[in-house]
């Protein structure tokens, strides 16, 4: 067996060790991450269906949306915003 071949085998050995080392470190990092940040099931979906009737949830965002829509409509209809009112907006 010549030198080049021996070198290539040495290089391969080192490289395999490095790869397994790096990926093993990754494995333990992932396990740590999953342990520290466990999956939490989202609150059951059906409950969400009951939310829209309660208009007090997240008032700021809905308020902004209403403002945007009212302004745009007023601008579009060439009327004063006070002349019409957008009551409620449901998010998608």
């Amino acid at each position, binding site marked *: 067996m010549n*030198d*080049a*071949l*021996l*070198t*290539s*085998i*040495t*290089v*391969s050995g*080192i*490289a*395999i060790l*490095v*790869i*397994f080392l*790096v*990926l*093993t*470190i*990754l*494995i333990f*990092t*992932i*396990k740590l*991450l*999953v342990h520290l*940040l*466990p*999956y*939490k*099931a989202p609150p059951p979906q059906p409950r969400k269906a009951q939310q829209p009737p309660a208009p007090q949830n997240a008032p700021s965002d809905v308020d902004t949306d209403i403002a945007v829509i009212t302004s745009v409509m007023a601008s579009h209809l060439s009327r004063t915003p006070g002349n019409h009112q957008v009551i409620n907006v449901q998010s998608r």
Partner: protein
Amino acid sequence: MELTFSGAALQILQSTGFSAINSGQVIMLGVACVLLYLAIWKKFEPLLLLPIGFGCLMANLPMSMMMSTDDGGLLNFFYQGVKYEILPPLIFLGVGALTDFGPLLANPTTLLLGAAAQIGVYTTLVGAVYLGFDLQEASAIGIIGGADGPTSIFIASKLAPHLLAPIAVAAYSYMSLVPLIQPPIMRWLTTGKERKIKMAQLKPISQTVKIVFPIVVTIICCLMLPAVTPLLGMLMLGNLFRESGVTARLHETSETHLINIVTILLALAVGSSMTAESFLKLETIKIIVLGLLAFCMATAGGVLFGKLMSKLSGGKVNPLIGSAGVSAVPMAARVSQKVGAEEDHTNFLLMHAMGPNVAGVIGSAVAAGVFLSLFGDPTAPGPESHAAIESVVQSMVQR
């Protein structure tokens, strides 16, 4: 006047490609047509092989100025993006945006299968050295076994640019042949009982882990193997675009039009480097043989390591998912599923095989990083560190 007219017509005729074409170019036009045939009618990685084949076609029309070496030619401009390693990282940005690392995070030990499949890279490295290639060339050839086109192109353009064309073509061709190459090896190395193993349901992963993962991978892997940052960093950035949930615009562009544009430029550039001088030589045949070896050994490496994990886990791991460690996402995972379903059609290995499948992408990027650390351009990863490595390698060679 009559005379000049016919004389001029004769001259025009002599200025056509017909007068200048040589046999090498005729053969390469045939190679281009074979690539186009495989891409269009056999659906071999058509997104790459079709423009590669067409680039090869144009490059081998004499005097068309479409070779990668024709200064000022159109494809020479595109080729700069390969030469300066700009296009493969942008492809990886798109690949990252398209990849779901969820199955890997749910079963992180499958990363080891992505590592084991790199065995194909190293047996090929040794084989290539045995066939007379030097270490840099052998590394570039070995990485074909990583089954990652952009990684192969990146490494080849850095370590062995004169072999870029056959390496790229071999890498993409064998990736398409995964459904043909892998199943016999998988069946041969596993028992029916092993193939029937059903794996436990994957646990769900929190979105926060999915977001933190690409950042952590980049820090750890690129600290350990700095030279692979352009590839791995961009892959992980694309994945962060996907998982963060706050960059939908960038995610969409990365995985659609940006990767498409870059693919067109990259594939034409690769095709333009398929000249008769660079392709029609004994090395190409050696590379094709070695590439096949690489894929077979990678598959075997993955399956055998899968058997080991199956033993050590007390039969909780189906070794068939090991073959998916070669990457070639998602084909290799589908092959695992298919071979498993042959034995028991109620066995669903697909999701489990996606873990080693995406692990294979990281695995071959890491393998590429090791090669770049050892053999990369001395100016690239800092001169003094490289000199140190060089002395080690030389001491090994001189022994």
